[in-house]
């Protein structure tokens, strides 16, 4: 017994001795710099170049806005959230990075002048070379995951949804990865085919890449495929579908269509990955939307928030068919202190407490089980269907 106790007092002595003999340390944190490079949080980027990609889409090249800062590496397929201030409304939208992840000098984004769009139109029309914009670090889970995606990939892109695929294709091609890719690209008309030359060039140079374009509103001169991306077209193009992994990027209508087609082809759920849905163009058409609520219905939105240390309360009208976050951004302007990134309910940056009231969320959105119980919501995809009371402190 005493031998054991001696060991303990020896340990104690040793500890004191160790504390005494070592030199006075300075602050040292071994992971801090790696962390700051990979997860800088907010970044400032400056537009260095602009190029027209098509009649309604521009390419913006962004370089570090503060000269000494380096850009963080990203995975091909990820996006950055671009924050803008338009007439006192501060808001963020995600844009996929087009440029290759193998260089870190710049990020390139493709921005389409979307009809009825708020941020896209603003960026398309007003963003000039030399402007500095606030962005999030690269985010998102849509990328080639070598752990289980395998070596045979089918990419299905609709319109602007081609952007993350361009980055993934560049990455795979530059690194000569032994991965076979079939790309089905659905567009409206000939002039909407983004990166046509690059894709054709890639197809000519690489035996592992096949590309086909399907137009839904083709002119009479178009010699290629027409219509939608149906199961027959998929099957004809890729052959055996059972050993392949499917990537889908497009809008909500396209997702619904493609997922039905893939289901008919017996593709299991775990062989499909897709980019976030984004907010629906028309929430009333989403499955589950309460039919008694029409598109002009308004509710009262009350918020309690912190204004430079003081608790303030405000009440304003909100449209049922508009995401809560959009209403907040418009009504609260720069006083709003809610972060956002994906605008699809995935990144959880905007998690907010709903004190009372009922909301509708699109069926594809998953939020934490317990958050639902405690009233935490993702306001970027939550629609107020009764009067709501939010805690923004």
């Amino acid at each position, binding site marked *: *017994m005493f031998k054991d106790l001696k060991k303990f007092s020896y340990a104690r002595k040793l500890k004191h001795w160790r504390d005494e003999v070592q030199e006075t340390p300075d602050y040292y944190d071994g992971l801090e710099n790696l962390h700051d490079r990979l997860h800088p949080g907010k970044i400032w980027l400056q537009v260095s170049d602009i190029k027209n990609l098509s009649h309604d889409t521009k390419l913006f090249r962004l370089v570090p806005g503060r000269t000494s800062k380096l850009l963080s590496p990203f995975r091909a397929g990820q996006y950055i959230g671009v924050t803008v201030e338009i007439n006192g409304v501060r808001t963020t939208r995600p844009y996929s990075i087009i440029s290759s992840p193998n260089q870190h000098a710049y990020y390139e984004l493709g921005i389409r002048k979307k009809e009825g769009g708020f941020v896209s139109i603003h960026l398309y029309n007003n963003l000039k070379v030399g402007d500095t914009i606030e962005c999030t670090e690269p985010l998102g889970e849509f990328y080639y995951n070598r752990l289980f995606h395998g070596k045979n990939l089918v990419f299905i892109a609709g319109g602007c949804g081609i952007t993350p695929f361009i980055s993934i294709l560049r990455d795979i091609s530059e690194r000569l990865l032994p991965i076979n890719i079939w790309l089905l690209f659905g567009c409206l008309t000939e002039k909407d085919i983004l990166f046509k030359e690059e894709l054709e060039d890639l197809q000519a140079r690489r035996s592992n890449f096949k590309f086909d374009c399907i137009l839904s509103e083709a002119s009479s001169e178009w010699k290629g495929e027409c219509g939608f991306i149906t199961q027959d077209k998929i099957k004809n193009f890729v052959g055996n579908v059972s050993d392949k992994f499917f990537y889908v990027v497009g809008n909500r209508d396209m997702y619904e269509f493609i997922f039905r087609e893939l289901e008919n082809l017996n593709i299991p759920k775990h062989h499909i990955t897709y980019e976030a849905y984004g907010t629906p163009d028309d929430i009333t058409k989403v499955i589950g939307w309460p039919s008694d609520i029409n598109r002009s219905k308004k509710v009262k939105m009350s918020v309690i928030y912190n204004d430079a240390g003081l608790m303030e309360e405000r009440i304003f009208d909100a449209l049922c068919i508009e995401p809560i976050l959009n209403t907040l951004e418009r009504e609260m302007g720069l006083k709003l202190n809610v972060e956002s990134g994906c605008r699809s309910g995935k990144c959880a940056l905007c998690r907010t407490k709903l004190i009372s009231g009922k909301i509708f969320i699109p069926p594809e959105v998953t939020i934490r*089980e317990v958050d639902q119980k405690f009233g935490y919501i993702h306001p970027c995809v939550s629609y107020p269907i009764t009067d709501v009371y939010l805690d923004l402190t």
Partner: protein
Amino acid sequence: MEKEITDNDQLPIVVIGAGLGGLGAGCQLALAGEKVLLLEKHNVPGGFATSFVRGRFEFEGALHVLAEVGDEENPLSLYDFFKDLGVLNKIEFKKPHDLYRSIFYDGFDETLPNDTAEYFDKLIELFPHEKKGIKKFKKIAFKVRAGFQYVAEKEGKASPMGILFKHPYLARVGGLTLKDVFDRCFKDQRLRAVVAQIWGYDGLPPSRLNAMYYILTLVALLDDAVFPVGRSHALSNTMIESFEGLKGKIKYNALVNKILTKDGKVSGVELLNGEKILCKAVISNVNPICTTMKMLPENLISDTYKKKLYAPDIGTSVFTVYLGLNASANELGINNFEIFLNSTDNLEEQYISSLRIEKPKYLLASCYNVMYENISPPGTRQVTLTALQDGKAWHTISPDQYHQKKDEMADQMIKMLEEFLSPNIRNYIEVAEAATPLTYYRYSKSMNGAIYGYKQDILDSPMLRLNSKGAIPGLYLAGAWVNLGGGYSTSLTSGRMAAAMYLEEKEQGRV
């Protein structure tokens, strides 16, 4: 934003960080009727005690099993605390059927029950030639546990001599490694490996680990290991709800940049956005190194204290792969909650491999559905692979190599699972996400992503570890880095100890 400083503006106490230590401290203070402000940099409470969503899966972030709750008949150290907070009414706890399943490279594959008597019977059944030693180990373990409970009941006021006379074993194991204790009980290498199987819960192999940590972990988990329905995210959110019910206030997205001082004492905190909050005392759930070296003005810290902070080694972090599988249990062959895979009997070797970014030799595969069926949607499974990984190994990774290294390591871990248990698992993966030591660092700012704080070796046994007393008057420390070491229940307790220390000093008029 500088405001006139008046006493009215000054809060009695601010807790930095809503991790387990901060939650423990905040709730304990709120229960004592204190007006507390809890500041959290993230937008969710809990620190590691949280969950995240990928696709249709919600993954448990860190918890395997929680100890020290008990029930009405056998209340353990957290029971009354949870009861007072109303946690017990709001959360259902599930009990795993087995403590763990052990699989070795040579085909040895045994499941150890969760019941104390059955556990030791099983060991005797497996290693009949070591019967005497197993009984001896059991005796030592329970004597240590009794001593620990005695100290806990005395609330830190037990005299060293009292402990020594009543519970000599507690004092004795304080200076011993787990290997020292094993040397007195077992000869069989495999038996040692099986008994020490959950060494990952303490982060060091028997040759380096202080025996007290391991014995307390093992005994605390036997019979009493539980898992909260709703994952640990439910636990932290329920605690926050109770905390707010007790007039506590929590502020999210509030990263504290500096601890403000006046005349060498704590006078407030400054947030990253420049906002200043005045207070008389601070309990910091941030690791002690960062709290002291980064948040306090440098001239206030004595060299002796700095040395104390840096002298102990920083403990291990982990590498975790979260898998959402579109398959049922039978297809996968994973029918236990905690399955340990060992490619060697030599635990020292297992540890050495955790210092490098390479295929692990010790891997834990946890299938939560076994204990808690609806943790993932019907027809799916949630499996987490955990390997210890020293954060230091990631210091030298270049940023552009990071994702590649992360994928390589995750790939190696899945390979190990394929070899030992589930050869077809990749065919069923629907979602895969990995967390490196950097990921743990990102969300906790814990040095090196350490999950248990300082290494739990002999020089940092519970009796010699830093305690809640901070570098300057009015500053207290909470969390895994101080007091009892890493783990869910110990971190909560560590926060409660910090709160108790504050309350006592306040009563004495020292704060």
